[in-house]
């Protein structure tokens, strides 16, 4: 699992400071969202899971984590009803693991 900043660079118009600002925003804020998603999934609070994933998922587009975005969309869809807890937890765990790995890579690559 890695990231792809080509979309972010397209938006930036060549402004690397903007790219770093967005990456910093992700590295700073994603862990809070991920903790909340993990907790809400553990508690089977599906309306909250859905709301949190909906808020968090656009960040994955900017960081170019397309596979993880797909998992997040799946979790959001599942959470519309009462999903299989094991399946939802598995999706949440995969999203968490992917993001944690990418956060560490971004921190190293951008010296954040």
């Amino acid at each position, binding site marked *: 699992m890695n990231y792809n900043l080509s979309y972010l660079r*397209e*938006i930036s118009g060549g*402004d690397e400071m*903007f790219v770093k*600002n967005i990456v910093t*925003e*992700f590295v700073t804020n994603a862990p809070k969202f991920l903790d909340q998603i993990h907790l809400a999934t553990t508690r089977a609070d599906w309306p909250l899971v859905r709301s949190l994933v*909906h*808020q968090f998922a656009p*960040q994955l587009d900017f960081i170019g984590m397309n596979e993880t975005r797909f998992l997040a969309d799946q979790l959001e869809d599942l959470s519309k009803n009462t999903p299989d807890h094991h399946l939802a937890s598995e999706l949440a765990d995969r999203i968490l693991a992917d993001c944690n790995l990418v956060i560490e890579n971004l921190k190293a690559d951008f010296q954040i």
Partner: protein
Amino acid sequence: MKILVCEDDAMTLMALNHRLLQEGYEVVAVHDGAEAKQKLAESQFDLLLTDLHMPLIDGLELIRHVRNDLNLTIPIVMLTRIGAEDIVMKAFELGADDYVTKPFSPNELSIRIKRLLK
């Protein structure tokens, strides 16, 4: 040209703000519909760019407010996720002019805004 941008996702708002400033627009960026209503009451804008899915006052209510309460004819561009056709249709019925799907293409956004501001 002055654009009011209303988007609850901080990263998307940063990206829209950055892109529109680079294109030479004056940008007022707000995080929710209530703040957008306040800015509309305080100042004049040439275009409104708004997300549809927002907590409290959503994009549909904001469009209704602009068209019905304020009687403004400024162009309105919606931001929405792919697959949200129902809400897009409602927004068009309320008076929105165009829409861009997220994640937005910077070039597409630029062209759509320029076309409406001609």
